[in-house]
């Protein structure tokens, strides 16, 4: 914990290898993320992006390598990680309100067999205010728009009082203008709450405008601790020329060459 404060290192992965049923999902991944970093990880579907997040969360145990999160093991630190899973896995008829879902983020703070405390409720209200969803707190989650639901999941991740947000394909089911708004919102949140954020996406478009560091992942991680991605990194990750992907991006990602 002290070490983490001194170095501001939030996540440290050293030579991580993951095998699923004999198939290699991650190959020698090294990654270091500090407080206030906003890292975008792009890569093709099936490139191991979700697996990488699950390694950080301690849901997947690497076959080889060292993981440290907030100066401790992932399992012990994960109460302090705000995880925002992919939106797609969701039953629209599920009888649960926005309020119930946000409070779930407090389960790590409230003991078993206990009701939510007044503090839990206060944190939930404050956080719903931050994500501008307080007036919809009694709405059933299935009757929210994609963007609203995403905000609820962010609130649920934030009430854990986390220092690290992990987002898995956060804008996969949200339209373009909404995506821009969403990333601006994340950017603001990061500055106000001093968070480290990792966003994983197969869509290089919007993500590259807002993040301050970017990595490419296709089993191996291509990362230079900067915002710059070289054509070589992308080609290595996607295994095909990808300069077309950068079209329509407000800021240039690829260097002129």
């Amino acid at each position, binding site marked *: 914990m002290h070490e983490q404060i001194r170095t501001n290192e939030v996540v440290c992965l050293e030579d991580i290898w993951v095998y699923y049923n004999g198939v290699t999902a991650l190959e020698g991944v090294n990654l270091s993320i500090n407080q206030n970093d906003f890292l975008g990880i792009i890569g093709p579907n099936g490139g191991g992006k979700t697996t990488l997040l699950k390694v950080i969360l301690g849901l997947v145990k690497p076959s080889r390598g060292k993981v440290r999160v907030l100066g401790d093991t992932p399992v012990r630190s994960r109460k302090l990680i705000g995880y925002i899973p992919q939106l797609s896995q969701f039953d629209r008829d599920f009888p649960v309100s926005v309020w*119930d879902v946000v409070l*779930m983020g407090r389960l790590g703070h409230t003991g078993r067999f206990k009701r939510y405390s007044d503090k839990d409720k206060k944190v939930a209200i404050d956080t719903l205010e931050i994500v501008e969803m307080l007036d919809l707190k009694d709405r059933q989650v299935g009757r929210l728009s994609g963007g609203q639901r995403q905000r609820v999941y962010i609130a*649920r991740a934030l009430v854990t009082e986390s220092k690290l947000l992990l987002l898995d394909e956060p804008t996969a089911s949200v339209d373009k203008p909404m995506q821009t708004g969403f990333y601006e919102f994340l950017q603001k949140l990061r500055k106000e709450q001093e968070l480290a954020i990792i966003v994983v996406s197969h869509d290089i478009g919007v993500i590259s405008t807002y993040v301050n560091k970017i990595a490419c992942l296709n089993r191996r991680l291509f990362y230079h601790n900067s915002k710059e991605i070289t054509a070589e990194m992308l080609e290595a990750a996607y295994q095909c020329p990808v300069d077309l992907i950068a079209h329509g991006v407000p800021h240039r990602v690829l260097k002129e060459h």
Partner: protein
Amino acid sequence: MLEILQYEFMRNALIAGMLASIACGIIGTYVVVKRIVFISGGISHSAFGGIGLGYLLGIDPIIGALFFTLASALGMGIVSKRTDLREDTVIGIIWATGMALGVIFLGLGPGYPPDPWGYLFGNILTVPRSDIIVMLILDAVIILIIFSLYKDFLALCFDEEFATVVGVPTERLYLVLLSLIALTVVVLIRVVGVILVIALLTIPAAISGQLTYSLKKMMIFSILLSAIFTTCGLWLSYVLDLASGAMIILVCFTVFLLSSLSKSLRSQRSYVHA
């Protein structure tokens, strides 16, 4: 209607119906929202093995069923969480093996094998007082556990992965939930039998799900609906002189059909207005 209450077996039957409604209203809601209908079917059918064993050993078949349902619930839960075996395949195997064991145990028993009809399709009119006490205890256990772990079960059902991340012991909690399904099955066997249990676990909760978006209200509605369905089914079976368990299920199905039709009509109308 009132004159049938003068018979003790009728009063016992109504009480059994009420006790069954409490269990299936609460646990059925979880079965429906967590989409574990198939595993619940496996648990209920495996109960037949326990009933057969009960006969063979000369103990109360309901107690035999309790052990079999608990063992199959925990067995299927552990297999699905800890191994790479396909969950639905394992459920199918345990489902049929439990039934087969029941038939063999009944055949091994002394004398002619007893008639399994009542345990397969329910015979609420023959519920002995001792079974009512067992049902009462199981209901109390179910209510106590759900009341004290309500928020954790909600998180487990809504988003298991997130619940794990924030520190909820989801695997243990899932096994507890399956065990509660096992207890519920035992409560329901007398009323509708091992084969029809799955209908009483799912239909009232499914109808309630069309009426409300709150899990708590869904449970309360399911309890009330099951109480109405079991009472109506019982009365119809008395009037028409037909099997009570099957009659209860047909009442459930009819109301489900009407509820679904009216829901789709309502949503169509609101679509036209919009």
